């Protein structure tokens, strides 16, 4: 059994099933992200772990102990909220000390821990300030320190970066990950931002309509999406329609060009299937080792600095492709005819 084990978890509000048969095992020290669109049930799962919602059925175990019947204040789970939720009447230091004070820890121990926590989040000299005197990013770091101070068994982060501006969001997520790794604390992070989830997680659980569509490391989620939803939700995707010629060997024709996908297909010969390719898997021009070469016409060119994002039209199908900037090769002009090349290895078959 994993350190935190969620077993057949279900939650209904009235007749609406918000979470459907959710299963997840989290190892100690792991950083898991629950990723999905609004209303997919990710926050509900988190709130059930925290104890703010009672599951309709299922079990949640931490260190082998079922916590479903424990009250939120008995679970020893730290939580950081989107709205910071610092206590406005307490100073930064008092906020951080709150959990230990409630637990009745000795004064000296509390003081030492508060100093340690404030140093951890880099706000050592702001202990006497009130929350309203801090910026959003500082408030959220204090909220993190407050949640970590009583040494919780699990840390829950409920979209902690959503209320912050873009620059702070990026720096704070790196900081959260560093702190999490330094303390080795088991963490569940809820977000709807795929970039956040991909950049800091050990594993991502992509949720949709109350079910976990796929769980795996970011690399796997991005490159080998298990379902159509995961493929579409995580990253941008080019979709093509291909015609199956031989399902057993995985042979299809894409834009009249035959290619072998290298895995058997369930569709019958002559039927259409959807294939997908990441923008970075589509190459401009003919490239070595890429067996499928297709003609296209450039419709848009976006120069983003290190990356050039090109949109092209391939016999009526829009294609998006990313290439790295090279000082010796300027991007092709809009309207020019080019060849694009793809490899069968990069193709994602969208059967689900």
């Amino acid at each position: 059994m994993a350190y935190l084990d969620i077993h057949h978890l279900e939650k209904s509000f009235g007749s609406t099933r918000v979470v459907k048969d959710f299963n997840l095992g989290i190892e100690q020290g792991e950083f898991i992200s629950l990723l999905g669109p609004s209303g997919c049930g990710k926050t509900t799962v988190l709130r059930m772990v925290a104890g703010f919602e009672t599951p309709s059925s299922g079990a949640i175990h931490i260190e082998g102990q079922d916590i479903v019947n424990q009250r939120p204040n008995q679970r020893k789970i730290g939580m950081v909220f989107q709205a910071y939720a610092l206590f406005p009447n307490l100073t930064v230091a008092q906020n951080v000390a709150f959990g230990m004070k409630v637990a009745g820890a000795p004064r000296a121990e509390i003081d030492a821990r508060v100093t340690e926590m404030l140093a951890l989040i880099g706000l050592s000299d702001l202990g006497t300030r009130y929350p309203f005197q801090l910026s959003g990013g500082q408030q959220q770091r204090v909220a993190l320190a407050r949640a970590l101070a009583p040494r919780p068994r699990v840390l829950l982060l409920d979209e902690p970066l959503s209320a912050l501006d873009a620059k702070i969001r990026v720096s704070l997520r790196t900081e959260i990950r560093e702190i999490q790794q330094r303390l080795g604390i088991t963490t569940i992070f809820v977000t709807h931002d795929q970039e956040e989830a991909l950049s800091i997680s050990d594993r991502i659980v992509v949720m949709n309509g109350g079910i976990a569509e796929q769980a795996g490391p970011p690399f796997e989620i991005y490159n080998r999406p298990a379902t159509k939803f995961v493929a579409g939700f995580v990253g941008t995707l080019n979709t093509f329609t291909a015609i199956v010629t031989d399902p057993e060997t995985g042979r299809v024709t894409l834009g009249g060009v035959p290619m072998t996908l290298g895995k058997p297909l369930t569709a019958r010969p002559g039927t259409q299937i959807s294939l997908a390719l990441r923008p970075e898997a589509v190459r401009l021009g003919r490239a070595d080792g890429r067996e499928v070469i297709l003609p296209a016409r450039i419709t848009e060119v976006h120069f983003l600095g290190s990356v050039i994002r090109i949109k092209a039209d391939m016999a009526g199908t829009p294609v998006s492709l990313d290439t790295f900037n090279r000082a010796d090769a300027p991007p092709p002009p809009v309207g020019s005819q080019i060849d694009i090349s793809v490899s069968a290895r990069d193709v994602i078959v969208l059967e689900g």
Partner: protein
Amino acid sequence: MIRVWSWGALLTGLVIMVLPLVGMTEFSLRMRRGEYSFDAYTKVLADPAFQQTFGYSVIMALFTIAFGVLLVVPTAYWVRLKMPWARPYVEFITLLPLVIPAIVVVFGYIRLYNTSSWLPLTGTAMGTNVLLMFGYAMLALPYMYRSVDTGLRTIDIATLTEAAQSLGAGWITILARIILPNVLVAVLSGAFLTFAIVIGEFTMAALLNRPAFGPYLQVLGANRAYEPAALAVVSFAITWGCMGLIQLVTRLSKHTRAQS
């Protein structure tokens, strides 16, 4: 033209509201013939009956405030947190004291808690005091509930509660350490209003036969000329002092700027 009307309205207001006060104050200073003096005030303030009744009312006010806070803060908090559907009903109940006259309530009390009833509160002085305190708390309920409820609206009580719970706090800790301090300004406004109401209340204290300030004011008014005017001025000063304190507390509160 509009300007003229505005000034007219202001002057009429002043004449109706301020002039009687000025007249009363002036009259209270005329106890000594031919010159102004504070004789009426010194006489009244030195009166042992004044000290006794005023002291009694102040103590009753303090108990009423304590009882009111203990009753209203958890109720308003719980209704906002867990039973938002019940808010209109609770608001309606807290408004009832404004439409039910105090005399009706006190007759109800006497009928229900007299010496031959199942709970003979009027049988002892202490029991009657307790009954009077309940009556006062009820009279102050509309003001207390509203100010506390408004205070609760300015903070995100649901998230603060969850944050405190995840840090291991129970309900009493949450109420005492998080909710109450954050609505303290609102609670104090309610408390000062309660104080002003209790100090001036007549009907309940008179009918329950308790030695409060209101009945004393009435007895004095029926028998003396200048002292009642002096007392009325003192009462006004207390009420306005309370109002001033509400303003002061609101301004001095150090962390409330966070909520704006």
